[in-house]
């Protein structure tokens, strides 16, 4: 109580100081927030606007459309995706769409496969006790999670040789298998966290009611774990969509994915900025949209198991 007395006496003075400090800290906080938001968003803004620029606008560093420069469909026309070319045949566009389709098939296929395999394993590890030789539950879980440390480069060349022998080079199946293995540890991690948070009494009650072990899983647990499954699926989708290393080594023509196409364009000298910008914008658009709409699930997926 004693320490309050001087505070009351200086209340007026103190209040003004506190207010000043409050304003200063607000300015600092919002300043920092805006600065970082600018750092995050400017490259995206730059890419999108550049896809509408002509050569002069690029070299003179014009930034703001309709103020600095008159936007034009230039970049998108070269991709065959501008309003005036969208109904004409375009080899670039069909190439782009083929790559886009491959990326969709690969990432959705791998994310689904990983989700099925990973959810089953995670549920088993969360509910039952296993003994495979010397391996107990914790060892099995560690065995799965530890796959995460394998750098792609370790598997890439053996896979090149194996896929050649298996005739899986340059196929969608081949890429799906390898993408599945790269996201499987993450799915298992997220899903075990999810299953651990569902009370085991639910399983027991359902077993008493006469459901089999698999019946419990399919009818009771899966519906409850759905948000976690969506999170694991979206996160896997993001990682597979952006993957470049394996795709660059293991595909040639047919199964090439979008990142490989973008990379091959970047490599060629003297490529037009506007078409590169349009291509990059088109490549990042699906995930940028997913990021804005499904941010909640991505955060849920990222933070599973890390915070308890």
């Amino acid at each position, binding site marked *: 109580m004693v320490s309050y007395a001087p505070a009351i006496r200086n209340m007026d003075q103190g209040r003004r100081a506190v207010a000043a400090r409050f304003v200063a800290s607000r300015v600092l906080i919002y300043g920092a927030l805006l600065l970082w938001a600018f750092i995050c968003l400017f490259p995206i803004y730059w890419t999108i606007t550049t896809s509408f620029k002509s050569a002069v606008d690029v070299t003179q560093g014009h930034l703001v459309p309709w103020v600095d420069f008159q936007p034009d469909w230039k970049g998108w026309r070269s991709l065959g995706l501008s309003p005036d070319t969208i109904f004409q045949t375009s080899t670039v566009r069909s190439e782009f769409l083929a790559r886009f389709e491959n990326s969709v098939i690969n990432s959705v296929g791998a994310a689904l496969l990983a989700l099925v395999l990973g959810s089953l394993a995670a549920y088993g590890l969360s509910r039952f006790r296993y003994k495979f030789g010397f391996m107990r539950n914790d060892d099995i879980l560690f065995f799965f999670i530890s796959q995460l440390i394998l750098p792609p480069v370790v598997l890439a060349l053996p896979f090149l040789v194996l896929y050649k022998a298996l005739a899986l080079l340059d196929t969608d199946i081949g890429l799906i298998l390898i993408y599945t293995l790269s996201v499987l540890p993450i799915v298992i991690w997220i899903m075990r966290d999810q299953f651990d948070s569902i009370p*085991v009494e639910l399983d027991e009650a359902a077993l008493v009611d006469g459901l089999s072990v698999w019946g419990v899983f399919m009818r009771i647990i899966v519906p409850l774990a759905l948000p976690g499954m969506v999170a694991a699926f979206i996160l896997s989708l993001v990682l597979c969509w952006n993957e470049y290393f394996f795709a660059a080594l293991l595909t040639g023509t047919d199964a090439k994915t979008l990142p490989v196409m973008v990379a091959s364009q*970047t490599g060629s000298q003297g490529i037009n900025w506007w078409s590169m910008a349009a291509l990059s914008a088109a490549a990042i658009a699906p995930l940028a949209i997913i*990021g804005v709409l499904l941010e909640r699930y991505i955060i849920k997926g990222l933070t599973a198991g890390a915070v308890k």
Partner: protein
Amino acid sequence: MSTAAALNDGRHQPPAYVVTAGRVNAGRWLIVLATIALLALIMVQVLYVNGRTTLGFETWRPLLYAYIAWAAALSGGLLLSRGEAGERAMFVLPAVLFTVAVVIFPTLFGFYIASLDWNLSAFDGPKFAGLANLFELFADGSYWNALLNMVFYVLAVGAEYAIAFGLALLLNAEIRARKFFRVAFLLPFMLSPVAVSWMIGKSLLEYRFGPAATLARMLGWENPAFFASPWLARISIEMMDAWVSIPFIMILLLAGLQALPREVLEAAKVDGASSWQSFWRVTFPLMAPVSITALLIRIIFKLKLADIVINVTSGGPGGATDTVSSYIYRVYRDRSNVGYGTALAMFYLILIIIFLTVLLKATSRWRRVGGKA
């Protein structure tokens, strides 16, 4: 694991259905026969490839199907012979069989390839080279240079962590439009590193017209060449990688901050701690487990860094920005020698395993990764 124990001790389990001796035998025979069939098929194919027999397949693809069929037979056999326990094993078995087929087997196979002199584009097949690749590796200055660069990249995770912590604190403060800022801060994580390579590396930082170069000139730096000198190039690459991955660390730390017990922070305030003190004495120590987790995962991913380097600098200038992955990629592209490339990769894998084991042991007191939570 306590929850699992409760179910497993099985007070409430329905009586396990009777597994007759006949079923057990049928199950065992199924597994044995399927295994024999798979091994026989492998033998036939090996003999065919070596030219001993004329009976065999054009490619190894049928063996993939044989493995899948074997896996199905194994599952069926376990279900028959083990009953309830077999049903439980079915949850983990698919993932285990998958992982063995696509991770364990290729990794072991990789150690074999690493001992070969094998140029994929040449006509003569693999030649056994013993430890020759390993000796070449020790003499390969570029490889050691790439390893040294990895040390820099891993140390730079510390800076990424500091920035991410600051951002997490900002997002955790009482602010308006929190959702907007969170989405904006998360966006770089969603973008493909290859696209980022162009968007930032090849256009924003471009020497002639890039806005970043223009800005640098305005600020008085006459020659803003971001990829010309070794250290600058390395830092530029690191900045791009940080741009993509800071959101990930930030999200983990933010979740940690939100889970902090409020009473403790309020108690610190009541005790008259300044916000600076309460951060360093209360928040930061309480955040240790989350921080260690975030740092470990980030380091694991950092050790895989390749895409941005391959697409922006291809390791240049003079190998200054090379990561181990990008170097091996280039070695393979230039020489198509899978033997040597794999030897480099396997040596790297061993180094990583040692490094991470030490790191896991050293941090095991605070960490929550790896199952032994």
